[in-house]
């Protein structure tokens, strides 16, 4: 019997370590082996425990607490899983997985990420072997070209093209770099891959290094991902021990060393030239392009940079052929894409689907629709560089071009779902707060422009918007798109532009009527007690932190609007739903 506990960051945050301890305490001395696995992507069900019987039957237990773990241990010992049936995943929840096609995530949540043997037993490193011993550099480039693989970091640039450019650059010192600085707030695909299947990244990178002729590979990981760094380090050591990393890999003439560099907290370092500056130990301020990294990159040597998900696809493509990959997807976008589905969706987690599915399929079929049966309002894709796509465009096909046409972008895979209670002006402000904070400060358009946009948005949500502010924002957006130095600045206006495009009426309501239609902007809200519903229980008056509510026992209470700080605590404590906000 095989017992695995999901130990991704999400799982651990949800309490997987405690569950692990309970299982170990109850089962280890009885000869059961309990191992860890990564993240299966069903984050809303964490912690998850998988028990596979010797006959291959899988029992997947979800939302496991310490008590449930004890029951599972008993079931394992007895071999009878009748009593724990209620703890197992429902068919409905399981459909979250069965509707997916997993390539980049193929091993995630299935194998032990800390065991290279498990990776090899799933066919790991055979693609590397194939490449080294039977394919030329151009063969690999051709295969990747056939696959149609495009950069999964957001821009969607053809991978083969970058590899070819780096390969063709003169020089014996070249670098292969993995961008694991997943900075989009609301995205965690790369973290999940590194934590759950680090060898697929290493193998993909080795193939890339072989192809461009790099002798050194560097992974630039966010410092906020400590577990990913630990697991990646371990994996590199293991690969080294087996001769997959280092000198004369698998006995060939191909050598490649690996290094991990931890980022130090700067979103802009996701931009490739800023990332290079950071790798070199400098301030992460983007360089001018050209020259492109393929010509002059890390230490001014030819360098190639791809993100984690891109590399995680490579070994599969080599093994199964580029055609198998390009068989999936649309005319323009091939293969699969991983999304981090979060926000007001019932089932949030990691979703990998072939390109070409619609947003509706992902959010409603896989994600199960909106929490608490509220109304879907918009989905945010591409994070601070992306935009909000409204309900009327839910049937948009997931494809680089089609998504760009909406004003959003494919992005790295963040997909944040919003319902009727999310203010879209507030959303734009949220992203501008982020970009203004993360701007490196080098170019004028971004440094001052994002600050000014943030200030205008702030005054709008605070009820101080002026007529003409929308037009002012639009003009700033246009100029920043045109004038900013790097991708961060050039795309920073997108959240504002898309919300203006699809939710202009919300902007107008804030500015002209001083109302927030989503009832989220506290400055524009008033709380009121309906005297016909209030029973005078005094709970709200006791709860109010600023003593803004007055009234005597058993008679209706009143809120003093001048004192009220709009914290909403009265409303949440009221048992008779007598309090409303407007």
């Amino acid at each position, binding site marked *: 019997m095989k017992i695995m506990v999901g130990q991704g960051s999400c799982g651990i*945050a949800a309490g997987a370590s405690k569950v692990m301890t309970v299982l170990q305490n109850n089962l280890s001395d009885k000869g059961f082996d309990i191992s860890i696995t990564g993240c299966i992507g069903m984050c809303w069900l964490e912690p998850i425990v998988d028990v596979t019987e010797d006959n291959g039957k899988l029992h997947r237990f979800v939302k496991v607490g310490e008590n449930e773990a004890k029951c599972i241990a008993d079931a394992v010992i007895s071999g009878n899983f009748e009593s724990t049936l209620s703890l197992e995943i429902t068919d409905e929840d399981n459909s979250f997985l069965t509707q997916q096609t997993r390539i980049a995530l193929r091993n995630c949540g299935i194998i032990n990420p800390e065991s290279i043997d498990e990776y090899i037993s799933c066919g790991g490193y055979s693609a590397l072997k194939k490449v080294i011993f039977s394919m030329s550099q151009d063969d690999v480039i051709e295969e990747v070209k056939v696959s149609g693989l495009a950069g999964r970091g957001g821009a969607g640039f053809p991978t083969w093209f970058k590899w070819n450019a780096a390969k063709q650059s003169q020089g014996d010192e070249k670098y292969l770099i993995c961008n694991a600085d997943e900075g989009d*707030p609301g*995205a965690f695909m790369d973290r999940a891959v590194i934590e759950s299947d680090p060898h697929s990244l290493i193998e993909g990178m080795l193939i890339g290094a072989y192809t461009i002729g790099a002798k050194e590979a560097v992974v630039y990981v966010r410092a906020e991902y400590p577990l990913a760094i630990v697991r990646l380090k371990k994996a590199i050591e293991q690969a080294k021990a087996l001769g997959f990393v280092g000198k004369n890999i698998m006995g060939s003439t191909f050598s490649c060393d690996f290094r991990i560099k931890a980022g*130090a*907290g700067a979103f802009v370092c996701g931009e490739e030239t800023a990332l290079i500056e950071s790798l070199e*130990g400098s*301030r992460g301020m983007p360089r001018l392009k050209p020259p492109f990294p393929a010509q002059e990159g890390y230490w001014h040597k030819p360098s190639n940079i791809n993100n984690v998900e891109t590399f995680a696809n490579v070994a599969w493509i080599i093994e199964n052929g580029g055609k198998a990959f390009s068989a999936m997807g649309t005319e323009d976008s091939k293969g699969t894409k991983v999304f981090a589905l*979060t926000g007001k969706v019932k089932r949030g987690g990691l979703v990998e689907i072939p390109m070409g599915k619609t947003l509706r399929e992902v959010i409603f079929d896989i994600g199960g629709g909106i929490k608490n049966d509220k109304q879907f309002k918009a989905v945010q894709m591409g994070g601070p560089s992306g935009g909000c796509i409204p309900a009327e465009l839910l049937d948009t096909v997931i494809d680089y071009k089609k998504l760009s046409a909406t004003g959003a972008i494919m992005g790295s895979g963040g997909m944040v779902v919003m319902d009727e209670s999310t203010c879209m002006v507030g959303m734009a402000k949220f992203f501008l707060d982020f970009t203004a904070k993360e701007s490196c400060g080098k170019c004028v358009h971004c440094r001052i422009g994002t600050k000014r946009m943030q200030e205008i948005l702030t005054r709008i949500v605070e009820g101080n918007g002026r007529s003409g502010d929308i037009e002012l924002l639009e003009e700033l957006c246009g100029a920043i798109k045109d004038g900013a130095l790097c991708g961060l600045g050039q795309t920073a206006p997108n959240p504002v532009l898309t919300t203006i495009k699809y939710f202009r009426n919300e902007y107008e309501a804030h500015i002209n009527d001083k109302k927030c239609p989503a009832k989220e902007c506290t400055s524009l809200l008033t709380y009121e007690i309906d005297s016909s519903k209030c029973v005078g229980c005094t709970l709200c008056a006791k709860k109010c932190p600023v003593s803004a509510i007055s009234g005597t026992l058993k008679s209706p209470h009143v809120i003093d609007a001048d004192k009220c700080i709009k914290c909403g605590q009265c409303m949440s404590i009221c048992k008779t739903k007598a309090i409303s906000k407007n």
Partner: protein
Amino acid sequence: MCQCSCNNNINLELLNPVLEHYASVKGSLITILQQAQEIYGYLPTEAIYKVAEATGNTPAKVMGVATFYTQFRFKPIGKYLILLCKGTACHVNGSETIAQTIKELLGIDDGETTDDGLFSLSFVACLGCCSLSPVMMINDETYGSLTPEKVKKIISELKNNNN
């Protein structure tokens, strides 16, 4: 040598192993600073000067790098470092209320430390636990699906532990 008027209680020798290992490896400035922060909990001025000298950089350059990245701190932090996630999913699920609650409870804002040296608050871009949003991390422990009540409880427990 330290040129400023700060206190000199910093044991700079603790930096030696780090510098021996990395000072001559080009491009290691960020790594060295990260390790220095591991040692002291923050980056003392003296340490910055020492790193500059050992790596052949000017203090201006080292300071430039250190102030660019949000990870680096220039003041000691409290016993409990609260990292409050300000990611998109957390925002959509009400992280602003959580931030407000913490600020009111502790009387500190982003980047500040309470007078008793117990708590420091830091807003972070995304902790990557979006399905548990809103989320915060205190030292190594992650707390998810937060509500103001839950936050109050967590913080008062930590306070009680120290009474």
